[in-house]
């Protein structure tokens, strides 16, 4: 057969063989690079796949008398109870999968832990140090507080974006209050009258307008939301602290500059890392920068205020440090500068008095009752830094039990979270992929002109088999996506060391999909989901006309990940887009990834078809009734 003849003289065959040979050489080099030259990798065998049982301490808190240090260990799924003086381990208490937040009851007798992957709350008796109850809660519970009366628990659920109110005795859910999108962190005011909630993804706002977030203010006694303090230009809000006198609140947050090209990193153009202060001490809420030229405070997360209001401490997960603020100086500066100064890189030198280097990815922190020690959880180092607050130095580093070597995976994760690789240490992968997910924003990434080729951020979960990358499908694999592209366009810095890039890729490929909250146990579908699935795979429209293969949902969104890994024109090109051909995005946990389309112009799944599919190019959908479209969406949420 002519079609199968191979001629070694044929130039295309020669090209093919040459390319294949180069690819093999590159693969061999890559493999050797992984296998050799990484002295920090003690474990042998299949290094790329190794999953060592790290602790990954995420949060810390002290017993009311300061005698015990409780450490929430995310990866090992346990709470380590340490003697706060000797740091000896008293007990390790297993809880659920990926615990994320914890707090003590008002009387100190119970410790509540949210298990973010199990959607449960573990109740630990602090006397016996045993789990006495496990209660079901909402989707991805991320923090918990109890009211002063010990009657109610409040739980922030990240996926459902709400704050559940539970009976503190039985765990029975009374109701859920609307939180911000990605509701995650709760703080009880010192007088117990208010609970302040924050959320890690911005609330919906019109396309290409500044992101908007909020502090959700709850009246504890009535258990209702009484206010939402707006946080303009903010996306990514984390821990919040209130001073002991109740007059000052401070919340750690990201201030992304996603409306201007990211190519302007060298002009300080990606993020401002800030706090918003609120309360009687400042009057109106005011946003203050933590960054300084060449000393960015990337990924601010934990906040603590000294009891005497002399100091405010912020952990900066990407900069691997704790920022120390002189509070009286800060308040004087705020009062003397009534105009906004959140992006002023000269401001922080007026109130930041120390930047204390700690371990990899510092997160939660707590001040000892006597105010002399500050404990910081270094998540990706399995250590706790104990800082002497008088000298602002790390007095000791407490190593938690677990592997002492750094695996490829861990090194990759450290690389993902650190901001060291970028120009002036401004950003890391996790600045936009918060907690290895996304940020709910669309960005102007490339140096192709202002407002050109806007792209929506995509989820990183379960990426194997979803290549190529970028919305234009321009990057064939993760080494290209995470390497040259990121280094050149994002970091604006020198290249990764080759093995660092290799480890980063190993980590990104390992990020699992979170459990799908819309799928019933056993994977069966509800009637609505089943009807939607039939629409997803249909080949004939409602009028009996065959739907061309390329215009069926299941053709482009094929396979287990919901992508054919090919590019198509689905009629969504905007005047500012270079090409109409777009990579088919995978459908993994699609319910969590709003906004939608390549540029994030569809605020909801519905808008993909109600607003952006007038010609049926993004699948044949205009024959559907509204309830049928709802069914299709119910099915998509199960992916």
């Amino acid at each position, binding site marked *: 057969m002519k079609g199968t003849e191979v001629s070694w003289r044929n130039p295309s065959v020669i090209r093919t063989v040459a390319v294949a040979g180069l690819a093999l050489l590159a693969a061999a080099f890559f493999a050797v690079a992984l296998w050799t030259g990484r002295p920090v990798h003690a474990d042998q065998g299949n290094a790329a796949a190794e999953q060592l049982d790290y602790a990954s301490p995420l949060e810390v808190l002290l017993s009311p008398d300061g005698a015990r240090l409780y450490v929430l260990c995310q990866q090992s799924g346990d709470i380590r109870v340490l003697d706060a003086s000797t740091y000896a381990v008293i007990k390790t208490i297993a809880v659920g999968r990926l615990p994320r937040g914890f707090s003590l009851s008002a009387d100190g007798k119970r410790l509540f832990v949210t298990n973010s992957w199990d959607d449960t709350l573990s109740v630990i008796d602090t006397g016996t140090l045993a789990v006495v109850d496990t209660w079901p809660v*909402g989707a991805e519970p991320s923090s918990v507080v109890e009211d002063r009366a010990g009657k109610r628990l409040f739980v922030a659920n990240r996926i*459902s974006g*709400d704050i559940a109110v539970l009976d503190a005795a039985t765990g029975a859910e*009374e*109701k*859920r*209050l*609307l939180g911000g999108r990605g509701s995650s962190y709760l703080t009880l005011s010192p007088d117990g009258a208010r609970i302040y909630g924050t959320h890690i993804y911005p*609330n*919906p706002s019109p396309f290409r307008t500044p992101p908007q977030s*909020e502090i*959700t*203010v709850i009246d504890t006694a*009535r258990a*209702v*939301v*009484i*206010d*939402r303090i707006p946080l303009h230009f903010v996306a990514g809000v984390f821990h919040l602290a209130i001073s002991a006198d109740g007059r000052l609140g401070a919340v750690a947050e990201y201030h992304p500059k996603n409306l201007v090209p990211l190519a302007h990193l060298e002009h300080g153009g990606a993020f401002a890392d800030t706090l918003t202060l609120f309360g009687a001490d400042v009057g109106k809420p005011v946003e203050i920068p933590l960054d300084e030229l060449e000393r960015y405070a990337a990924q601010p997360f934990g906040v603590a205020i000294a009891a005497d209001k002399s100091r405010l401490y912020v952990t900066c997960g990407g900069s691997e440090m704790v920022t120390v603020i002189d509070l009286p100086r800060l308040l004087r500066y705020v009062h003397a500068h009534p105009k906004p100064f959140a992006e002023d890189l000269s401001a922080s030198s007026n109130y930041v008095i120390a930047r204390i280097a700690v371990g990899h990815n510092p997160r939660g922190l707590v001040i000892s009752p006597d105010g002399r020690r500050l404990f910081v959880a270094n998540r990706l180092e399995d250590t706790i830094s104990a800082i002497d607050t008088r000298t602002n130095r790390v007095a000791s580093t407490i190593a938690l039990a677990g592997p002492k070597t750094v695996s490829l995976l861990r090194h990759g994760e450290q690389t993902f979270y650190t901001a060291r690789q970028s120009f002036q240490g401004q950003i890391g992968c996790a600045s936009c992929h918060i907690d290895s997910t996304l940020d709910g924003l669309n960005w102007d990434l490339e140096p192709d002109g202002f407002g050109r080729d806007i792209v929506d951020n995509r989820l990183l979960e379960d990426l194997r088999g979803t290549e190529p990358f970028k919305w234009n499908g321009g990057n064939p694999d993760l080494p290209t996506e995470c390497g040259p592209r990121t280094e050149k366009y994002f970091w604006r810095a020198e290249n990764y060391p080759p093995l660092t890039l290799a480890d980063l890729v190993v980590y990104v490929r390992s990020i699992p999909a979170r459990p799908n909250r*819309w799928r019933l146990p056993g994977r069966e579908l509800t009637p*609505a989901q089943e009807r939607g699935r039939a629409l997803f795979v249909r080949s004939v429209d409602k009028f009996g006309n065959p739907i061309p293969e390329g215009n069926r949902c299941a053709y482009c969104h094929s396979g287990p990940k919901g992508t054919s890994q090919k590019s198509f024109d689905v009629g969504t090109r905007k005047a500012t887009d270079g090409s109409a051909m777009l990579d088919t995005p995978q459908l993994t946990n699609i319910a969590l990834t709003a906004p939608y389309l390549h540029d994030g112009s569809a*605020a*909801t799944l*519905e*808008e993909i078809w*109600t*607003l952006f599919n007038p010609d049926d190019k993004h699948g044949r959908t205009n024959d559907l*009734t*509204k*309830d049928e*479209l*709802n069914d299709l*969406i*119910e099915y998509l949420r199960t992916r």
Partner: protein
Amino acid sequence: MKKPAFHSFLMIAMLLAVAPQALLAAPASATASPAHHAAKAASAAPQVPASAAPQAPRFRFENFTTANGLPDNHVYSVLVDGDRIWAGTDNGLALYENGKWKVYTTKDGLAHRAVLSLALDKRTGDVWAGTMGGLSRISGGHIDTFTQLSSGLSNDVVYGVSVDGEDVWIATAAGACRLNLHTNQWSLYNERNTPMNEIWVYAVNATPSKVYYAVWGSGVLEYDQKTGRWDKYDDPDGENEMVLFKDQGLIHEIVTSVSYVDNILWVATYFGDSRYDGRYWHNFLTKDSGLPSNFTNTVKGIDGKRAWFGTDKGLAYYDGANWAVYRPSLTTGKPEMTVRDAQGKVTPVAVTTAPAHNYVLGIDFQGSDIWVATAKGLSHGIRQP
């Protein structure tokens, strides 16, 4: 088969309902003449002092209009939330708190300026507003909105909304909806999956046991929360105004409002009202009750025995035997209250205040006080001893 003439009637009736000013342009006496005659008779009779009047609640009405803070005089809906009063007007959502009005508009994120319906989530304090352009939620002073393009909502004309537990039940111009607040799942109910002949759904009342929908031209739709089954109540006389046998069933197919309390269903239609106890129907017409007009926009039961009716000719109260009507006189415009006892005797009561207007669109209770949404102002009926 649907009757074209009936559809034409529906269209006209809809216009009247959503644009009461159109109705007001016509002489008020053009319809429901028996009530009008009764009113005239009552006006002519000597008024008795309040202390000597038959037993009926008496109120001093304080009226709000644009003159004292309302954004618009056309008030479609009113909602009491403790000391706070929400008024859905033709030009924004108004909140009365601490003696002042605050107005939410589309600039604040409200789906549309015309707010047709309101519901309170008593657990969370969130307020849901059905508008001519979608459904809005007001929570902690922040508004977010659901539309037919951005969400699973079936239609942007939201005539009715009611909250029960984690479900928001919605009545729209194109079917009924339920939004589950835990899963964000939308369920749509229409002629394809319920016994709904028309999909023009005008009001909803959700309770832990039953959910009732008022469907224009398709009677009352009932959803049993326990079994998940739908049922339907129709006028046994079909789609016309005849009443062959009194109390045989629902008074008319054009249902405008439902209220379910103490296992009793109160129903308002444009051709009289009904009470259903699960076994027997009892109907109210101007000719055989104290109802001031058969054209009823809204009904709200206090309990299984007592209910308030909002008609095009005044506000009416029924206590199980006696009726009271509160309104500006149809002839003089002066404040008027009449009481009709079980024997049909009408007694005028001397009053100095009345609701802002006779075209009543919404009712809610604040303790023993009543709030009334009318086509020309919002009224606060302060209960008098």
